[in-house]
Structure formats: structure tokens, C-alpha cells
């Protein structure tokens, strides 16, 4: 579930920002000859609804129905009492309640005489919800993942500013970790606490406890830390997800080198394009690239791998998280940074 701060903050993401997104989506729906678009949400598959409304469910699930005109409708099995909370944190849609939210979707579609409904990630929509819709209205369903991805792929200024803020928050939180910690949890506990104290909506922490042995990440706090270890911090703030991986060492000479590499990554990463290429990525002199991938918000997923050494980027993304592993002076270094949110991109998005 989402445990952290969930709050409507007009100064960070305004109603006008969200309405502009809704209008762009409605134009695409009409252009595609659809009568409406349906997006599913739960706290794991939250990204589509968060983008179109600013709302993230902390628990349970729901649907957002976007018709060609008017405000979107959030359809949920949550009670009217919880609905008051929903309205207080997302004043950008109508909220409709039913133990069977798919049925209300069917009823609303019937009211506008809908015949064609696009569904983002149709094959992943809970089967029970689709049954509910079709029990009310035999509407033609089509997959609208590509349509949504095309609209969603265009970055806006508010989102990129939130990416920057969230990344700053994560970078600062790492300072709470003690590299001399014996166990992973000793390092990550204070880091997670710092993230949450800074008002994060959610935080996942994973550790590669000994990079000399294995660069895979696990969640346990009980693992003993090796000479060089990496920590992956996945942070959500006001609906935006960022990941950062930092590599640490308890050996001061290695730690100094790692700190220098990290600072250089911070300098260059924002200006890198989120286009699925690695060519512009900073690698320290003498380093050898081992692996990389690019993640981005896609469909209902807050972050999903959208490109790697074998797969090129299929559709534009609003920003990305570039993760790399490289070897340097016999050490393995893992690093993740958001890319595609530098001043140049922010200026373009504002225009």
C-alpha cells in the first residue's frame, strides 16, 4: 500500500496542469474514433490514473473513464466515506461508487450511446471488471495502450519539476546511511526514514549487499554488507517515481572514488535524453560498461523497463531512469539516475 503523504498540492501539480492532460487525451480519443477510454488503477498499476487525475489509490482499485467530453469519472468499490478522502486529494474528477465499478462504467457508456471503448492494457484489466462492463453494455473493446503511450510520452513542466524534486529528496536521504554499517538494514533504515520524513508518498529499498559477489538486489535488511555494496532507492512523491542506485564502500580510498563518480553522474544525468540510447552516458575514464537499461512511466506502470541493450525504445517517454553497471579498477559499480529532466527539457516543456 501507499503509507506516506498523499495530498493535493496545487503549487506542485495544479488543476490546470491536470486538465490540460485530460484535454490532450480527449482529443486523441476523438481522433481515434473512440467514445471513451478506460484506465485501471491500484497502488501497483497507478501511473495511468495518476497522470490523468493526480490521484493515486493507497489501497484497493478503481477505474477512470474518460469520455470525449466532460470531467473523467473515477469508478470505485471504495465506500462513500473513503470517497470524501479521494475528492480531497484529487479534485480533478467525479467520483462514483459501487461494489461493481465496471457496471457503472457500462451505465455511463450507455448514457452517451457509446459503441467503442478503448482500454489501456486491455489484456491486464481484471477479468471481473470487464465482465461487469459487458453485462451492462455490449460495447466493442479495443486495446488503447499505444494511443495512451503516445499522449503520455509528452513531458510537461509540472511532472519534470516533480521528478527533479523527488530525485533531490532521494539524493539527500542517502546521506543518512552510514557506510560503516554491518548489516544492510542498519544502512537502509535511516535512509528510508529520511525519505519519509521528507514527505514521500512511498519508498522501496533494495540492496546488493556485496558487489564483489553478486550485483543482484534483494530487500532483506539482515544481509551482511561487503566491502562494496549498492543501495536502490525507489521513491514516489506526489505521484512521480524516481529510482537512484548508489554504490558505497567502507574503504575510504574506494569511497572517495565512488563519491567522485556519483557527483559526476549527478552533473550530467539530467541533461541526457530519455531516448533509449547509452552513447551520451558518462563513464569514468577506464571504466567498462557491463549492463544498462532504461525505465520510464508506461501505461499503468509507474516505472517499467522500456529499453536495454537488446530492445530499443518503442515510444517516446516523458522522462527515464537510466540504470548502469560498470567495472572500474576491479570494482563493480551500479548506478541509477533520472534522465531527461534538465533545464533544457524543462524549458521546452514549459513552452
Amino acid at each position, binding site marked *: *500500500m*501507499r*503509507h*506516506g*503523504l*498523499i*495530498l493535493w498540492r496545487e503549487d506542485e501539480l495544479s488543476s490546470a496542469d491536470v486538465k490540460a492532460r485530460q484535454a490532450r487525451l480527449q482529443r486523441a480519443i476523438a481522433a481515434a474514433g473512440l467514445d471513451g477510454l478506460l484506465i485501471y488503477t*491500484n*497502488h*501497483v*498499476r497507478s501511473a495511468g490514473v495518476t497522470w490523468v487525475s493526480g490521484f493515486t489509490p*493507497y*489501497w*484497493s*482499485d478503481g477505474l477512470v473513464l474518460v469520455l470525449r467530453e466532460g470531467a473523467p469519472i473515477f469508478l470505485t468499490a471504495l*465506500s*462513500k*466515506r*473513503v470517497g*470524501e*478522502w479521494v475528492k*480531497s*486529494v484529487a479534485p480533478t474528477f467525479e467520483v462514483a461508487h459501487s461494489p461493481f465499478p465496471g457496471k457503472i462504467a457500462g451505465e455511463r457508456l450507455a448514457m452517451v450511446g457509446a459503441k467503442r471503448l478503448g482500454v489501456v492494457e*486491455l*489484456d*491486464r*484489466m*481484471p*477479468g*471481473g*471488471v*470487464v*465482465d461487469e462492463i459487458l453485462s451492462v453494455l455490449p460495447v466493442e473493446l479495443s486495446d488503447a495502450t499505444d494511443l495512451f503511450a503516445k499522449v503520455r510520452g509528452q513531458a510537461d513542466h509540472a511532472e519534470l519539476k516533480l521528478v527533479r524534486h523527488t530525485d533531490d529528496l532521494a539524493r539527500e536521504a542517502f546521506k543518512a546511511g552510514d557506510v560503516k554499517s554491518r548489516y544492510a*538494514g*542498519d544502512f*537502509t*533504515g*535511516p535512509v*528510508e*526514514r529520511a525519505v*519519509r*520524513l521528507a*514527505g514521500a508518498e512511498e*519508498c*522501496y*529499498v*533494495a540492496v546488493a549487499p556485496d558487489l564483489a559477489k*553478486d550485483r*543482484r*538486489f*534483494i*530487500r*532483506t*535488511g*539482515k544481509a551482511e554488507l561487503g566491502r562494496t555494496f549498492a543501495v536502490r532507492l525507489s521513491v514516489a512523491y506526489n505521484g512521480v517515481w524516481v529510482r537512484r542506485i548508489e554504490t558505497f564502500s567502507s574503504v575510504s580510498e574506494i569511497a572517495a572514488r565512488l563519491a567522485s563518480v556519483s557527483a559526476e553522474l549527478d552533473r550530467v544525468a539530467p541533461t541526457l535524453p530519455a531516448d533509449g540510447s547509452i552513447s551520451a552516458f558518462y563513464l569514468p575514464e577506464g571504466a567498462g560498461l557491463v549492463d544498462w537499461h532504461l525505465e520510464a512511466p508506461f501505461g499503468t*506502470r*509507474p*516505472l*517499467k*523497463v522500456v529499453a536495454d541493450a537488446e530492445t530499443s525504445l518503442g515510444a517516446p517517454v516523458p522522462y527515464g531512469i537510466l540504470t548502469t553497471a560498470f567495472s572500474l579498477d576491479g570494482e563493480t559499480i551500479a548506478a541509477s539516475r533520472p534522465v531527461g529532466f534538465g533545464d533544457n527539457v524543462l524549458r521546452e516543456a514549459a513552452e
Partner: protein
Amino acid sequence: MIGEIRKKRLIEAMVDAGLDGLVLYGNAWQNDYLRYAADFGILEGEGLAVVTRDGDVTLYLDDELEGERASLECPEVKTVVARDLIGTVSGVIGRLGNSRIAAGPKRHLPYGLAARRGDLRFEDATALIDRLLMVKTADELAAIRGAARLADEGYAVFRNAAAVGKKDYELIAEIESFFRNEGVDDNFMIIGVGGPEVRGMAPPLGKVLKPGDLVTTELTPCVNGYYVQICRTLVVGEPNEAQRKVFGIYNDALEAGLAVVRPGVTAADIARAENDIFRAHGLGDYVTSEYTRVRGHGLGLFPDTKPHILEDVNTVIEEGMSLIVHPNTYNPEIGYFVHGDSLIVRTDGPEILTKTARQLFSVDAKRAAA
């Protein structure tokens, strides 16, 4: 290993039902079916576990990072990362050939699979798995007792962290940090801060604790996949007369509900015992769905599992179930109030798991946030 014990029970249930294969879906919200078979605490993306009656379990995940983690955290299960999760698993079901397959849970099974129920010829596994989830083995109950200890310790951390001037999300930061250090995988937690204007609980809204506030919380740590819940209310400063009086009603309702718990009664019997206390005080309106959701619920691999404790739920309570009884609801005089304890159903009645005193806690109004 508890995962192996569950798998053995699952295979026995499949054999009894004449099934050759099971396909179980999960995500971080609704993970109980998947976890029962594959013992993986999925966090991002979605997964499907395919179980065959000869004991093979394959976990299909659509997220590369989660695939990597699963390979380390549950090496006994074969993990496959499949970006086309539905296509891949449909192919696997197809290759099982002339076998009896069941899949679930029905409501959450992805449409791409559910729509092929006819040509892939699979049945609904929901009832079979629900039964296994509700009535637990001795080893599962031992795991639940372990989680209860952390629920109590977590509430002590919460109480000690509450202070005038502290924000609700800062309180949660303390709890989450404590739980992560203790190896708690997840925690279902909502909170309410204030007075009569507070009608329920939600994630934190940035409210600042002030003297006189009620601070309500449900804490539900998850240890090795099993959730246990505790509900308590504290007052910032000395409780006033109304707060003390209302606490007495909720405590009576909790004790009345617990007193009914034994094998053979229904969920409705427990709910009715709780609600009768409210009705006796003229508060009958406040036990309806306008003000409260449930009067308790099952606990296990999902924090809000069946049976729901409601006056219209006639599920028979059985030995080996784990439940929370919580007469949580709105009170018009003082606001939303919570009070509840987790238990295991035994032949002679409830074994109460959470040991935190049943009292209206208070924190010194002079205790200020650092």
C-alpha cells in the same frame, strides 16, 4: 520452510479436487494467491504462478527487477521473466494439453487470460484457494504469532513517537523505519488525527498533532507474508470525559465480539455481539455502512481477507482461522475511534495474539516533537 508446507497442502487440495494444474495471479496489492504457491512477496508489476500436481512451481513475472529479486529470495521456485506475461502463460496452459486446470482469483485474473477460459479450458480456482487461505496450518499460525509480536512492538514505537507538533507522516516514518529494520516486508497502515470532524482513517494528510486530538491507527505488519493487525486510539494530552466514556463503549464492544468467537459460530454472530453494545447506547446508526466498513476481518497472506465480520456474512468460523475483531466506527461526540485485537480461533475460544493493553492511551501534551 513454510512455503514448502503450503505447497504440500496445495498439491493435496489439487489432488482432492482432481486438478492437474493451477494458475494463480498476484500483485503487491492482492498477492495472497500467488504467495501461497510461490512464496514471493511481489512488489512491482504482476505475476502468475503455474503449479502442477507433481509439485513443480514456476513463477512468471513481468518485471525484470522483480525477477532478479525472486531468483535470490525464493531460489527453490523457477522464475521466468516474461514481458508478455499473458501470452507466455497462455502458451504454458495450452501446452499442458488435456489436463484439468483451474485459475484464480476470478475477479483479478487478467482479462487476456480470463477471456480464453473457453479455449484454454480452465476452471475457477477461487473457492479452493480461499479455503486454504482462511483455515491455516499450525506452521502458518506460528508465523502469525511472530507477526503479532511485531504489531505490539510497532504500536509501542508509534505511541512513543507521538508528540505535539509532529506531523502524521513523520509518525509513520518512525514506524516504517522500525519495521524495515525488524525484517517486516510490508505494513498496512492508515491513520486519523483530530476530533469529531474525522470520519475515518486514510494515509497521512500532513496533519499536525495538537493537544486534545485523537490519533487512531491500524497497524498491520507483514512477517514472512503473514499480516497481523492491531487497532488502538490515543489522545494527545489527558483524555476528556467524553473520550473516556466512548472508549468504554468500544472496549465493551470488542470484548463482546471476542467472547463470541469459537468454532461453529458465524461471522454475523461476532458482528452482532459488537453492534448490540452500540445499539444499547443509542449508537445503532453508527454501525451501518454509512459510518463503518466491517466489524473485523480475516488475516493471513492478505491483510483484509475473508471472512468479513458483518451481520450479513454467514461464513462459519472454524478452528485455525485468524481474525481481527475491531468495532471501529465514527462517534458523533468525539470522532472516528478504533480498537481491535487479532486472534486465532481455537477449539475453546480465541487465542488473543496482540498483547498491548486495551486502554485509551495518552501522550503528555507537553511532549513536543523534536
